[in-house]
């Protein structure tokens, strides 16, 4: 049998083109393997091979979703593949969203099996785990070998139309699909077994995990913003020049609170970004591009807002665990309430 034809999608970083300064790289196609594709080919053995690799910058893809999707699909079509793989993206947010978006689009528009992989906290996972198979990976590229070892044989299974096992067995995120099967014990017996385990304090596996809908209802609107105290918060890592609290460029272990009393404008000499997940050139030149202090001062002067709160809060949202961000914000939100802040503008990069 001839080898299955696979097209692989990766970002500018894994293609060796560059980091954040190249994140606006437009889609390009190269014959054969590039970067992590080699590891895939090794694991495919005689069953499959990567015939082409599509490379696209993460920012380009996310800022031009529709165009990028269409361009990449055109490129894939030409190779008439049996299978499409994107990533793995680990905990890279934009890359994960790109991998999810493009696999989802290829599946529905070209009708071929698709696969991607990423870390569970990657926003792309929540967005696409219901529509495509996403293999669960570690949060950084050190997990490449392990990820590919799971992804490659699973991809072959998908491409050959073989039966797919449960999420636990195969290593993909649950898609919320139910499948009938014959259990050895009847339901009442299984329920009692579980209850006994629970009473003993032992681990048990539920057969019906409750979905985790963490939604917060919107608060009522601000009655009159021209009287309100407004605060700014950012995950874009804006800090006073020199980053006095050493907020990490990724996986931040803290947030910063900075006094902007009397600051009318964030300048190149006084502020910068600590964020390592986007090209910092523009924010370093003028941090107002991320945290609009200059404009808010004007609006304050003109009476369009009551007052700009004296402190801003900041962290780098790059690879930072959801649990950490949640804890930081829960803490400073309390301060904002105590300080009488009535509205918040939160900016993200």
């Amino acid at each position, binding site marked *: 049998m001839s080898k299955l034809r696979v097209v692989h999608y990766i970002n500018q970083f894994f293609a060796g083109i560059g980091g*954040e300064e190249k*994140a606006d790289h437009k889609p390009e196609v190269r014959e054969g393997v590039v970067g992590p594709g080699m590891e895939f080919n090794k694991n495919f053995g005689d069953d499959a091979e990567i015939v082409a690799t599509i490379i696209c910058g993460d*920012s380009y893809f*996310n*800022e031009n979703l529709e165009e990028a999707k269409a361009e990449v699909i055109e490129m894939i079509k030409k190779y008439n593949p049996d299978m499409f793989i994107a990533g793995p993206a680990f905990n890279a*947010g*934009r890359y994960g*969203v790109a991998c999810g978006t493009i696999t989802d689009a290829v599946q529905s528009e070209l009708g071929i099996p698709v696969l991607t992989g990423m870390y569970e906290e990657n*926003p792309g996972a929540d*967005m696409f785990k219901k529509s495509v198979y996403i293999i669960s990976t570690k949060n950084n590229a050190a997990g490449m070998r392990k990820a590919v070892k799971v992804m490659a044989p699973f991809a072959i299974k998908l491409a050959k139309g073989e039966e797919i096992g449960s999420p636990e067995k195969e290593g993909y995120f649950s898609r919320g699909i139910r499948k009938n099967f014959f259990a050895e014990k009847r339901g009442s017996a299984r329920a009692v077994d579980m209850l006994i385990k629970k009473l003993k304090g032992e681990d048990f596996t539920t057969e019906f995990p409750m979905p985790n809908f*963490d*939604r*917060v*209802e*919107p*608060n*009522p*609107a*601000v009655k009159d*913003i021209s009287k*309100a105290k*407004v605060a700014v*918060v950012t*995950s*874009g890592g804006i800090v006073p020049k020199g980053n006095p609290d050493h907020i990490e460029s990724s996986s931040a272990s803290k947030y910063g609170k900075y006094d902007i009393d009397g600051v009318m404008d964030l300048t190149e000499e006084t502020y910068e970004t600590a964020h390592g997940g*986007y*090209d*910092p*050139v*523009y*924010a370093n030149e003028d941090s*107002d*591009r991320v*945290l*609009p202090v*200059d*404009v*808010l001062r*004007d*609006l304050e002067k003109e009476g*369009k*807002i009551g007052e700009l709160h004296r402190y801003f809060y900041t*962290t780098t949202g790059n690879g930072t665990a959801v649990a950490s961000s*949640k804890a*930081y*914000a*829960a803490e400073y*939100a*309390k301060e*904002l*309430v105590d300080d009488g*802040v*009535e*509205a*918040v*503008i*939160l*900016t*993200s*990069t």
Partner: protein
Amino acid sequence: MVKEIERAGIPVVHMCTVVPISLTVGANRIVPTIAIPHPLGNPSLDKAEEKALRRGLVERALEALETEVDDQTVFEK
């Protein structure tokens, strides 16, 4: 972060470029911005034009804060 601020009882508007992420995270008031490395600016404009652009976006954010919403809402132009 946006959810924790909302949970604390303060209306919050999320200004970001990749709207699908904001929707997934659970922001209720969303204003789409220019680009990932410069959400509230555009380095290809001159300083005055760029500031006007930024002001337009911030004004839209303030309008969003003054608008009642029942559900996740994206405030396009």
